[in-house]
């Protein structure tokens, strides 16, 4: 295989495996901007990955599967939001519970639905016409030859950036993560703003899971995400809670994630343990390089309670 083809394959795989990371991480960032630390991202991704895969296997439709994944995410985000914001709960424990429960639930339902069989989605469900991709040498297939969802995902990421930065809603989300009391004082509902952020975060995580099982892999198996949700949480921090920085980080870590399968495609044999380890080592290294002096949203992880006549955060 010549060097150009190798670069093409590695680049395509890297960009495609950046998609679930970017979506989940942007979702986590929207939640964290509103003060919600959701360690359940991994669990919500698994839920989205399972329902997305199942629906798309039954309906033979990529779009329906992705939609189902996103809707599962909305429901999970709603659940997280109601418990963390309306009822009030310790967010770290709640997130761990959602991850544990999501992992258990998807493994259980996968066995109930498919037994011991390992169904695969039919390949190349959504490849664009090849001539477009062949127009550009080397980078063509990676940039223009991806499934359509690839492009939609980056549009969603850009939309999240615009939403956080340029809309009233975005301003409210950012404000409620810095100072819920101030937001409440000017008459904006902290609870509904946070609920909205929780739902958006859930939807993006669910969609990220579905894109992993449907677009990237074409199959589901118990715990298929392998910690991608946790890497996404780390990326939200490394990308300083800004979607475009997160997108850049996601491409870097996506290439680390995809390196294993990329090398396999071009017949280079490396111990799979090492390639599997790479993104996690990368996160620690990146935190070491840039983690110092990072300022998180001030009210991150704090549950806001309004009492009659008095407002307090605890």
């Amino acid at each position, binding site marked *: 295989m010549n060097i150009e083809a190798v670069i093409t394959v590695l680049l395509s795989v890297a960009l495609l495996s950046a998609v679930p990371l970017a979506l989940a991480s942007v979702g986590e960032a929207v939640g964290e901007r509103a*003060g919600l*630390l959701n*360690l359940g991202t991994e*669990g919500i991704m698994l839920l989205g990955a399972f329902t997305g895969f199942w629906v798309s296997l039954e309906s033979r439709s990529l779009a329906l599967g992705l939609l189902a994944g996103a809707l599962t995410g909305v429901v999970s985000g709603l659940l997280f939001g109601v*418990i963390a914001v309306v*009822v*009030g*709960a*310790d*967010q*770290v*424990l*709640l997130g*761990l*519970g*959602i*991850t*544990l*429960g*999501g*992992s*258990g*639930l998807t*493994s*259980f*339902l996968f*066995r*109930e639905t498919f037994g011991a069989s390992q169904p695969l989605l039919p390949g190349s469900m959504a490849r664009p016409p090849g001539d477009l991709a062949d127009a550009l040498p080397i980078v063509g297939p990676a940039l223009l030859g991806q499934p359509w969802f690839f492009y939609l995902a980056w549009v969603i990421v850009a939309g999240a950036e615009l939403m956080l930065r340029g809309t009233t809603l975005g301003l409210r989300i950012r404000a409620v993560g810095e100072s819920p009391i101030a937001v409440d004082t000017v008459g904006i509902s902290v609870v509904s703003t946070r609920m909205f952020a929780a739902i958006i975060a859930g939807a993006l995580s669910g969609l990220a899971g579905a894109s992993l099982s449907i677009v990237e892999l074409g199959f589901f198996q*118990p715990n298929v995400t*392998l*910690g991608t949700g*946790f*890497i996404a*949480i*780390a990326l939200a*921090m490394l990308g300083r809670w800004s979607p475009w920085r997160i997108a850049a980080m996601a491409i870097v870590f996506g290439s680390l994630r995809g390196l294993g399968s990329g090398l396999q495609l071009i017949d280079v044999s490396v*111990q799979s*343990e*090492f390639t*599997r*380890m790479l993104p996690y080592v990368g*996160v*620690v290294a990146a*935190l*070491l390089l840039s*983690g*110092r002096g990072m300022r*998180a*949203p*001030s*009210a*991150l*992880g*704090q*549950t806001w*309670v309004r*009492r*009659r006549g008095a407002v307090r*955060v*605890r």
Partner: protein
Amino acid sequence: MTAHLGFKETGWGRPRLILTSKWMDPLWAVLFALTCGAVLLIVTGHDPVLAYREWVERAILRPSGIQETFVRAIPLLFTGMAVLLALRAGVWNIGIDGQVLVGALAAAVTASSLVDMSAVVMWAGAAVAALLAGATWASIPALLRGRLGINEIITGIMFNYIAMSMTSWLVKGPLGDPAVVLPQTKLIPVEMRLSTLGGTRVHIGLLLAVALVGCLGWFLTRTVAGYELRATGASPAAAAHGQIPVAGYIIAALVASGAIAALAGANDVLSTKGAFQGEWNPAYGFVAFALVFLGQRSVVGLVPAALVFGQLSYAADVMPRAADVAPAFFGVIEGALLVALAVTVWARSTSVGRSGFGRGVKA
């Protein structure tokens, strides 16, 4: 539970029901989790009454079930202590899974090189190796947290995944037993494993774990270091004002926590497993958090809570045969339990809200 609904401010005096007392919280959480499980069983076409009856009959009422519950509670007790110690210093050790793995591997390698010695020497050697390995593995996230203020939750989880890959590579390659095809360390002969107690399957690891629970309780409540550690956890700013080396205690707590967690791995290798097998991952970490909060974050509460989760772990093995319920069902139960505990813990306490990123403490 209803504190934030404003009962406290009304001044009418809340009706003091036993059912709403703090001590009933774990029971409600367990009931909630079991209800969630029943709903899931109904939705997936199982008979929940039949499944739960089989569970009680086969896993709880039989002597073998009770013995297995104790056997499985032992490693959970170690991991629960690890979580609790870190939590008392105000930090979250979510790196338990990785520390268990490196501890188990270190113990397995050390034990298999000491098979010619007496059993007690081998156990001690394996335990020391596990302690050192767990402490070393935990020291990196600990230092990053204590010195640079980098969130220990994220680094802990990353180190779990690194440990999984690293240990599985090590047993496939340099540390594996070349005599067998499977990637695993040299098997420890059955007569060299931890001695069992009075003809049961329960082994002396239980005595060690319970003794260590006693030591932990003594350390936290009766020593200066324990007091300063708790002060660090209760209010880092106040502790720093009182000349307590906050960063030092955070690092020490995380390192010690990792060492204790590693004992769970050593325990499994020396008793039930006999070797470190590639890709083995008991995933005690998240369960340990559920355990600690089920035990109301008290040292004494660790023991009954560990028995609850020991029972869940055994039930996960029995139920596929007994009632055709997949082991993953118990993951759902444990997740639901954590969610319920997250609510009760927050409602009862005024200080747990600090669990976010915004609580950074610089020395």
